[in-house]
């Protein structure tokens, strides 16, 4: 991995200084496999959408460039990533779609509209990704870990 420096400017944006001394503003980190291998590959993308640095994994980044830079990237990622995990389905308005779901998530209680059954994507046999009408994604990491009531409601859509 080529060394680089990363900092945050007054606008809250990441600034990358490459090892050749070039400076790129408004850098965003992007995971290559956010679902299947979130820790595996990460790219730092500039405003134009060009890749400016590639990070094999956060662990190797830490050993190579120190823990500060890792914390910074993780903070920025945490600010960008919003995929609440559904912990409980409290109520669904109807078993036909569109249907309004009231759920408890790891980020608090909310409700959303499910547009169609095809917006529920099976990630593996036991985990799901649900996209609501406004494009917000919710995940269910482990169906078996839900309580019985939630599982029964969910089962009607699968």
């Amino acid at each position, binding site marked *: 991995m080529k060394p680089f420096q990363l900092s945050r400017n007054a*606008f*809250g944006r990441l600034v990358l200084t490459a090892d050749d001394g070039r400076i790129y503003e408004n850098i965003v980190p992007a995971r290559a496999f956010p679902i299947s291998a979130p820790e595996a590959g990460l790219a730092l993308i500039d405003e134009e959408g060009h890749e400016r640095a590639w990070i094999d994994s956060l662990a190797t980044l830490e050993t190579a460039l120190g823990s500060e830079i890792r914390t910074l990237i993780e903070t920025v990622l945490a600010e960008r990533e919003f995929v*609440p995990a559904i912990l409980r389905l409290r109520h669904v308005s*109807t078993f*036909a779609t569109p249907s309004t779901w009231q759920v408890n998530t790891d980020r608090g*209680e909310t409700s959303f509209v499910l547009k169609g059954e095809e917006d529920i994507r099976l990630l593996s046999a036991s985990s799901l990704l649900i996209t609501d009408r406004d*494009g917000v994604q919710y995940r269910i990491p482990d169906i078996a870990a839900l309580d019985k009531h939630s599982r029964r409601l969910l089962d009607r859509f699968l």
Partner: protein
Amino acid sequence: MTPRHRDTRATVTPAPSISVPAAWQAWALSFLSPDEKILAWVAIDLDARLRFAQELVVVTDRRLLGCALGNNASLEGEPTCREWARRDGQRLSHDDHAGVGTLELLDGNGRLHHWRYTLAQDAAVLRLVQAFGRRQEEPSPESENGAALCPVCGTPLTADDDGCPNCAADGTAPPPSTWILFRLWRFAKPYKGSLLLGFILMLTSTAAGLVAPYLIMPLTDDVLVPAEKGVPVDIGLVALYLGGLLASALLAWGLGWGKTYILALVSERIGADLRTASFEHLMHLSLEYFGGKRTGDLMARISSETDRICLFLSLHLLDFATDVLMITMTAAVLFWINPWLALVTLLPLPFIAWMIHQVRDRLRTGFEKIGRAWSEVTNVLADTIPGIRVVKAFAQEGRETKRFQEANRHNLVANDRVNRLWSLFSPTVSLLTEIGLLVVWMFGIWQVSQSNISTGMLLSALAYIGRFYTRLDSMSRIVSVTQKAAAGAKRIFDILDHVSNVPEPVQPVPLPTVRGQIEMRNVVFRYGNRTVLRGVDLAVAPGEMIGLVGHSGSGKSTLVNLICRFYDAAEGAVLLDGIDIRTLAISDYRRHIGLVLQEPFLFFGTIAENIAYGRPGATREEIVAAARAAHAHEFILRLPHGYDSLVGERGQGLSGGERQRISIARALLIDPKILILDEATSSVDTETEKEIQKALDNLVRGRTTIAIAHRLSTLRKADRLVVMDRGQIVEEGTHDVLIARRGAYFRLYEAQARQVDTEFALAEPWGNTISTTDRSPK
């Protein structure tokens, strides 16, 4: 939708104060100064740590306020507020990524504050940003061109809209149940007469069937029992009774035949109507719907689900109705013969009813699952068969077979689950009826021994009871098919109830003549949560030719999709001759648009039919003229069947360039005022491109044209070039002006010139100077 209340206190000012949500009203009264005007507000739904929370951000004429509530669930407690007095140099900016928006308050030195929200609030945020940016004296956008704006999302409303098309209510449909089958009445209504006739026939044939067991009574008591006692048999009486038996059987047969025939005929028609109606509805749904659905799923719904419903209507519903009739009539006769016997007979009924109630919902959900599993099977087919070349090229036949097997296994599992339940149900009903019969025998023998009833009466009653129980048995079986049909009906009505995202206006504005002036005003569009167009402003004069260029993925095809109204803009508007295209009847509008795509699609049919696709009434001369102008005439003549050659699926194969020229002819024939060419000349060699280019020059003359091309040389005829980059228009002007500016276009041009050079150096042109993939949605 909350109507926008006017603040009554405010006098007529250009920017009236608007009221905040009800829950915040008390706060607003106490917190704001009496003469402070609220210009816009948005209920932010996330906090800085991206947890669901409540915060109200308000723009007033003097400050920006952000008030968060401690408790996120209810609107109780004192809000904590932060405020920023309005100063020059401040600005609000908003952006979104993966469904979450960020609203930032910036000044020259940096970021003062930021808020996060889900895209559900996006339209409100946009209004807030606009209100903040607008100088106070300017009027609010209440009516930009006389049209009212939706108070929730800012979409312009037409006078006849009673709701905003953008934020129509969701999730209010009634829960699916067996009752959904009654919605099929809409399709049965046209056949009322035949249905009534069938019903009368059913009634009479059922009644005729009930005569036979009744005759057992006099036959036993008047003939058999006396004969046993040595009384000579009355031949006349026997003939009368037996004749009666035969006559009733014949009558039941005749009537039953009529009934079955009529009702089967009707149900088949209802099924066909249902299928056509779903297909017709499907055709009018927006591209977004098709983008989200899988082809196999739609195919399964329209073909096999309608078939199930049809089968249900023609066979099972009929049986069921007969059974119900039979059971009530039998019960009535039984009561008439002996009420006590009848009561004993009805004993198993509550148990069966209870069982039906238990299994009904589970069966229906089971069948819904089977339907989905079946769709998955069709999906694999619809995926693999058109892609068979890729499958074979990569030698992945085995993998596709596995995929199919997997889908099939799912189907099996879903079926097994229902069968497990069902296999228990039927025998249990039989067992209950057997037990019931046993009880009736015991009760009957006791009654006969008490001389309360005669033997004939008991035998006749038993004959009725036998029928009663058989019917009960078969009637309980209908539970399964009913639930199957209900599940099917649900999946059909899923399609039928879907309102197109590109709604047809209730009272379309008439469009007599079209000049062809196109205008896009601050158009924002996103696919799902990906913003693809970010505030596009573009005006095209009548007859002008615009060349649209930009990197792959910059949103060129998307822009064209919006002009064609395949999608509606999330914000902003597209106008034709100054009229919002959402207020025009869709087919009226599209009639004026000729579209040539990179991957032209030919339907199964002759070449002539394909050329005349947009105007089926065209004469042969017109078709030939269009083909000539499209430089397709000659190659068509070289085909053995000329214009009558079959193309499309399984038909005569045509090369990419040939297909393209047919689609140009197709666009030419409808003589559109607006012409849209989306990479109409990629994927062909230079020679053919010249041919096509000549064809296009014919086409472009006198029409408003928007041409997308990667080969910039294709656009030399364009009056103006528009350069797009990441969803925005970055440059506009003629070739020379843009080259002189040395901006984005210059770089594109340079890169291409270089590539052309290397191509010459390699002497091995790749056909495309810049390889592209068209990502227009399916």
